[in-house]
């Protein structure tokens, strides 16, 4: 059998990025994926005449350089560098956010662009404009700072640290501060703060726990570089990765599950495949959570003490309930306009997070309609409306086999009826296809604990900045074994997983 320099376990976003990185560096790489498709979360599925996007809402840091800041996003540079053949499409709005509280409620659509976003906020919350401007100026500084750090491989040496102190001392001041604290310090009025914090569904930490720097950087990037999606759904990105990796000499085996990772004396020796084969290899990149690898794929005697402690200290991020509807009504006639909408009972995401822990208290969801961006993403006369609810805990902990299907139906119905109630739109007379994916479904496809889709909560001590600074050496405990993906140093999300794959591949190459 062919000898491989490195094996990538899992063809999710992180694994694909790492594999492409290795292949481009001239290494012989083999990707082993237990499913029949690449991408992990980044996939699509066909039902009747619809092809549904499984998970992608929007990619971040994807600017094409034709935006107001003229910046080509870091993720765009990375993916272009791999030679991915993807038809990227920009989303021309930030988000729509609906709070259905009868007294403090609002329904606002926020545009992209600094000026436009600021003006829209000023209009909705008079007097807030100058504060929003200030927040986004912080965002500009943070964006420059993050780029500066990336140019120093996130590990500035002693001299560069002094330069950083001089240039980005303010970044260093705000990184450890929570989003809520900094927005209050800046003086953003409460309602504007709530609107600004709408993206919270996508991050498994509330705004008392989330670094202002990370949240503000993300928002600024979306506003200046726009959110992006792929014309043929995220499956196009995953298939483009498959194509690029093969063209650079890599191999990918689907339906090939890795059962055990062979570690002896703190050093990787190879992998055991589920169907029996053993492949020798001294370098294994896992696009799996360390919880899964150290919990069930490694000889318990070889699990480092630090990993046990780290895993028990961390909090599983979020799991997710998604509902996909194929409707036999054209988007223009639906009566609801927006690509990505956050529907919430309160703008206060700390309260929201308290309610996200269980099936009984969780009330909120987001809505995505790709037709807004790509009108012909579904057949003529139809549109696709997708809902996602994120749970912060093991929400399905008590669900039995017997009640499972009924529960899925119940939650789906609750979402549909609630959306109908607050918008006055009739969905039920138009449902041609309906698919539900619960945390159990995600557990099945991703194999993550609880069906987690966001890795570990990036709250407080385990936020992005300390993770990034630990990702090279401190969190590397077994020789020849590294981890990448949405649970990685860069946090959850497609873009972050791609960056994480590249980052960890770069570190591994140093050791090969």
């Amino acid at each position, binding site marked *: 059998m062919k000898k491989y320099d490195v094996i990538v376990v899992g063809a999710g976003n992180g694994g694909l990025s790492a594999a492409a990185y290795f292949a481009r560096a001239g290494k012989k790489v083999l990707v082993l994926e237990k499913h029949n498709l690449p991408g992990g979360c980044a996939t699509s599925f066909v039902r009747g005449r619809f092809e549904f996007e499984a998970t992608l809402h929007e990619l971040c840091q994807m600017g094409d350089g034709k935006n107001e800041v003229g910046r080509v996003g870091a993720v765009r540079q990375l993916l272009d560098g791999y030679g991915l053949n993807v038809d990227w499409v920009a989303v021309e709005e930030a988000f729509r956010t609906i709070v259905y509280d009868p007294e403090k409620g609002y329904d606002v659509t926020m545009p992209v662009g600094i000026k436009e976003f600021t003006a829209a906020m000023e209009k909705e919350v008079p007097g807030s404009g100058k504060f929003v401007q200030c927040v986004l100026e912080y965002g500009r500084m943070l964006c420059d700072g993050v780029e500066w750090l990336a140019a120093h491989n996130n590990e500035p040496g002693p001299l560069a640290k002094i330069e950083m102190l001089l240039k980005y001392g303010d970044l260093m001041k705000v990184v450890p501060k929570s989003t809520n604290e900094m927005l209050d310090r800046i003086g953003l009025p409460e309602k504007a703060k709530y609107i600004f914090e709408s993206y919270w569904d996508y991050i498994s930490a509330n705004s008392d726990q989330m670094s202002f720097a990370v949240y503000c950087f993300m928002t600024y990037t979306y506003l200046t570089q726009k959110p992006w999606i792929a014309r043929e759904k995220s499956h196009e990105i995953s298939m483009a990765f498959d194509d690029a990796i093969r063209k650079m000499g890599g191999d990918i085996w689907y339906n090939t599950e890795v059962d055990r990772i062979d570690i002896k004396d703190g050093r990787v020796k190879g992998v055991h495949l589920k169907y029996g084969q053993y492949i020798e290899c001294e370098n294994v990149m896992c696009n799996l959570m360390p919880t899964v690898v150290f919990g069930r794929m490694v000889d318990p005697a070889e699990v480092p003490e630090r990993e046990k402690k780290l895993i028990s200290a961390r909090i599983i991020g979020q*799991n997710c309930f998604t509902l996909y509807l194929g409707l*036999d009504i054209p988007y223009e006639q639906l009566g609801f306009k927006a690509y990505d909408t956050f529907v919430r009972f309160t703008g206060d995401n700390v309260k929201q997070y308290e309610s996200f822990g269980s099936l009984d208290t969780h009330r909120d969801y987001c809505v995505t309609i790709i037709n807004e961006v790509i009108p012909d993403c579904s057949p003529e006369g139809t549109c696709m409306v997708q809902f996602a609810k994120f749970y912060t805990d093991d929400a399905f902990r008590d669900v039995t086999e017997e009640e499972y299907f009924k529960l899925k139906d119940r939650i789906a119905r609750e979402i549909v009826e609630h959306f109908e109630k607050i918008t006055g739109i009739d969905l039920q007379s138009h449902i041609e296809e309906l698919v539900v994916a619960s945390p159990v479904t995600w557990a099945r496809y991703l194999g993550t604990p609880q069906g987690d889709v966001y890795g570990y909560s990036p709250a407080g001590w385990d936020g992005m900045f300390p993770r990034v600074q630990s990702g090279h050496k401190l969190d590397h405990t077994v020789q020849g074994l590294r981890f990448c993906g949405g649970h990685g140093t860069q946090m959850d999300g497609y873009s972050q997983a791609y960056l994480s794959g590249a980052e960890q591949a770069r570190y591994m190459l140093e050791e090969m």
Partner: protein
Amino acid sequence: MGKYNYDKSALAGLGVGDFLNEVKVREAHIAAAPAEEIKSVYNANILAGRLHPDYQQARIAEIKNEPDAKTFTFVQDDENGTGALAYFRAGQYISAVIEMNGVIITKPYTIASAPKAALGDKNTSYMITVKKSPDGFASEHILNNWKEGDVIMFSQPLGQFYYQDLRDAKNVIAAAGGSGITPFYAMAAAIADGTEDFNLTILYGSRTADSILLKNELAELETKAAGKVKVVHILSDEEKDGYEHGFITAEMIKKYGSGDYSVFACGPKAMMDFLKEETEKLGLPGRRVRFEVPGEFGNPAGTQGYPAEAAGKEYDITVIVRGEETKIKCRSDQTLLDACQMAGIPVTSDCRSGLCGWCHSRLVSGDVFMPESADGRREADKKFGWIHPCAAYPLGSVTMEVFPNV
């Protein structure tokens, strides 16, 4: 520095010390945590494993003879690692792994029994009915060989041909032919035992009264369901009192359907093709008409777009599995999946209708014909040259990479 125009007073009292300490703080958190056993499996993971097992081993506990068919009752096979069969939705199918003359093929069969029979940890069972079909090697093999005590391997329950109350009308008219009764039998059983709640009128087409499958059992379910299930037998080759005569037509459906209703259809391919035309006459919106996946497309010759000169030939196929090449042959009227499986290459497959995507494979070179009605690929698959070999026919020499899971 003046480079950024933000209000510095928001930074009052903040230093860089916390930033420089972040890694230390993180390390302290880790050091303070207990080095306990790692928990990676939660209830959602356990449920996922129970509902979606990689494989199920089931033993034949009982065989009942039907007209030109047999009904097999399977029970969990603990000895071979299946402690309980997976729960499912009435209407779903399982794919059987059939060893036949030294080759392994897969065939989908609807679970006819009630989901409740598969619930729990003990005494779980599935029932499937296999009918002799004119060119069905697999059905003939099963009817001749499967005997009580045999252990058969199945996939997890699959398919989307089940009732969803948020989508479907409360009244469902089922159009069934031959062994296509099985999903509706399961639905009727689920209604009778309270698992499902909708009104089901089954229009069941058979050739003669004697050839009706599960006839008495259907009558029993009708009684048990107390008005929610109605069975109407339609005989094509016989006129008899108490039976409708002819085919399941738009007229027939209209006779039994009133108000808002959904039509669900399952039966042999010829009947499904006929029903497609009939249901169109009803003028129902597309969401009110659902067809079970049709099964194998069959000989593509004569299909629109099929090049006439390709018919009646045999081509060289190079199949790559994990870097190893195998040369096989494939007739032009044979699917690439069939050729692989017949040559002993166990390509994964479930629906065999071009739709589920489980056989997703890479076309390295060569041309194939994929009938439009059986092309369930994702758009990006087309862009990057991937195919579903269960509904792809060679038009010349072909090289493809496939991904068996064994």
